[in-house]
């Protein structure tokens, strides 16, 4: 059962931040509750006051900023992202990922900010947004700061967010010319066994930039520089790709991996390699469609 707590329902960001300060720190921000309330039920967290930020305008909305970056309010639900015409157009892999996240009820209630702030090692959005070079914007009474995903997610269930900071939004850079972004996962149980996100640029038929992120395999979603490097310069449509992907897969052989209910560390690394092949192909398809 959810233990007893006090509730504050602020209407502005300032009210929310003030409410936190007023508790002296025995408080937490609440959005969809799909993670936080579950943790409280299990007795893993005793929190005096929950500050419900769903009414705070700063945390809402999906828009394209003038500089082309996509801004997702932290309290935007998975369903809103999945159904957003803007996201479907600008970042179809994110819309697709959201469609296959958890179940319909969790997607209806859960928010992107809550997902990232919980830092579950199997998080789909965290892995994808990491590869995309996305950032999160945090606010506290002492000011605002913007962190890239890999500086934000610092450990399993652990982020750089201070207790008094609330996540305002997530920012995703626009695709460069000839850029494709993809995400794929294998899930045999409730959470993925492995997931891979690929962001690459194809110019004149060759891969000129690449980023590879692997999720669910290690304690945090991780960028795999070796895999990305192996893809660089490869002929996106020709015979050279096979060798490059094989080399990139090889770079996954020594990534940090932790056994879990999905299987051993070795098996999860193997799954990541299987996914990398699929994700590279999908990213190239998007890149070339874009071109």
């Amino acid at each position, binding site marked *: 059962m*959810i233990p*007893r707590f006090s509730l504050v329902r602020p209407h502005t960001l300032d009210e929310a931040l003030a409410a936190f300060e007023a508790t002296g720190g025995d408080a937490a921000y609440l959005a969809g*509750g799909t993670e936080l309330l*579950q943790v409280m039920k299990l007795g893993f967290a005793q929190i005096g006051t929950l500050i*419900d930020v769903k009414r705070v305008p700063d945390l809402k909305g999906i828009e394209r900023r003038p500089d082309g970056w996509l801004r997702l309010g932290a309290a935007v639900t998975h369903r809103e992202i999945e159904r957003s015409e803007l996201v479907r157009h600008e970042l179809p892999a994110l819309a697709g990922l959201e469609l296959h996240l958890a*179940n*319909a009820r969790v997607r209806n*209630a859960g928010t992107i900010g809550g997902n990232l702030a919980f830092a579950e090692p199997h998080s789909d959005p965290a892995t994808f947004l990491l590869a995309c070079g996305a950032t999160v914007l945090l606010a506290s009474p002492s000011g605002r700061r913007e962190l890239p995903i890999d500086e934000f997610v610092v450990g399993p269930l652990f982020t750089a967010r201070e207790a008094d900071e609330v996540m305002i939004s997530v920012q995703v850079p626009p695709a460069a010319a000839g850029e494709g972004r993809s995400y794929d996962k294998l899930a045999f149980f409730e959470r993925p066994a492995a997931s891979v996100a690929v962001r690459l640029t194809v110019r004149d038929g060759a891969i000129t930039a690449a980023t590879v992120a692997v999720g669910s395999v290690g304690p945090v979603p991780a960028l795999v520089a070796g895999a990305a490097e192996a893809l660089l310069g490869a002929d996106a449509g020709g015979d050279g790709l096979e060798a490059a992907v094989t080399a990139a897969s090889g770079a996954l052989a020594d990534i940090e991996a932790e056994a879990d209910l999905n299987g051993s560390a070795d098996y999860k690394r193997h799954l990541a390699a299987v996914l990398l092949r699929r994700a590279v192909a999908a990213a190239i398809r998007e890149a070339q469609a874009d071109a």
Partner: protein
Amino acid sequence: MHELVTIELSVNGVARSLLIEPRETLAEVLRDRLGLTGTKVSCDAQVCGACTVLVDGLAMSACTYLAVDADGRAVRTVEGLATDGVLAPVQQAFVDKAAFQCGFCTSGMLMAATALLEDNPTPTREEVVRGLEGNICRCTGYVPIVEAVLAASRAGDAAGAARIEQGSENSGGAR
């Protein structure tokens, strides 16, 4: 004395004003305060779907949805599906196809199906299967449930019936 808050909501079309503790889930309020025990709690972890209700038309896990979040919203439960004693088409289809056994998942399954059909009145078999992915039934093996939802869909009156007889063209096999 524990902190109490007032919420105003509509439950199956009836306006309600309730004084509740912030910690109370929608499932607790429906079951314990309003006596609407059709909504069941099973896994209590948003996995099984037994507690599925609709809040402003969206399926939610009432086990983990704070009742205060329903303030100002319209909640629908299994008790609200039938009108004037006449079963909703999806309920009737569940009866016709024997799409339940023990019945513990049934309320949530019906609400998930209702949300699915309101969003997409003519789903394919695959869309029904995907739409019910988050609702567990341990008795039926899902076969009659999928048939019932297809039968209750707008297409179910005519074309759907033929499709049901044909069997599952989209059964991708066990995953």
